[in-house]
């Protein structure tokens, strides 16, 4: 298990949160890939994440996130997020909204690793909001 889940749990051990919901995304063995690879644009990822931290704070919750850069092999975890909240309902809704917005908005690009090459996963990717304004 990714050790960061334990670290996060210990960070909040005395914060009096009643619900802790991690999300662990793991690279699946499918389509004959050897693994996945990721590019991340950190400046925009960080400001996106700061906005989510502010939303969490408004609800008395805390959100944490980690994402791999570069290659991630089969059955390794590429993405981990977690929400801590006093109440379960807030936590359940928050992890869902956060993970979905992460998929739609985080500036991260995914590549299949096939025969040692990086192949951009265009068909599983989502255009960011506001895309196409230069066309």
């Amino acid at each position, binding site marked *: 298990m990714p050790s960061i889940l334990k670290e996060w749990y210990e960070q909040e051990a005395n914060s009096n949160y009643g619900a802790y919901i991690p999300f662990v995304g793991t690279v699946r063995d499918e389509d004959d890939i050897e693994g996945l690879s990721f590019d991340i644009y950190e400046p925009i990822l960080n400001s996106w994440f700061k906005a989510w931290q502010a939303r969490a704070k408004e609800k008395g919750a805390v959100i944490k996130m980690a*994402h791999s850069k570069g290659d991630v092999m089969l059955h390794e975890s590429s993405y981990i997020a977690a929400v801590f909240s006093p109440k379960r309902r807030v936590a359940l809704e928050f992890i869902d909204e956060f993970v979905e917005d992460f998929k*739609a*908005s985080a*500036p991260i*690009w995914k590549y299949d690793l096939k025969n040692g090459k990086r192949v951009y996963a265009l068909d599983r990717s*989502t*255009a960011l909001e506001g*895309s*196409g*304004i230069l066309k």
Partner: protein
Amino acid sequence: MVRVEFLGPIQKEPLELDIKNLNELAEVLKSDNEMQKWLENSAVAVNDMLVSSRDIELREGDRVAILPPVCGG
């Protein structure tokens, strides 16, 4: 000058352009054959803020980023 960077899978070196707004940037990129397919599905950030319209003036030293479709997780 305005620096234009191409992120993720767009295999293109950064440009330094003498442009005043995103309309001028659109004209430059439309004339670039390898960029045409990306313009339709890419978003634009100015100084690391995503913008939702072309109605943006650019100043000396601004940085523009072109962001193709994403897939985290």
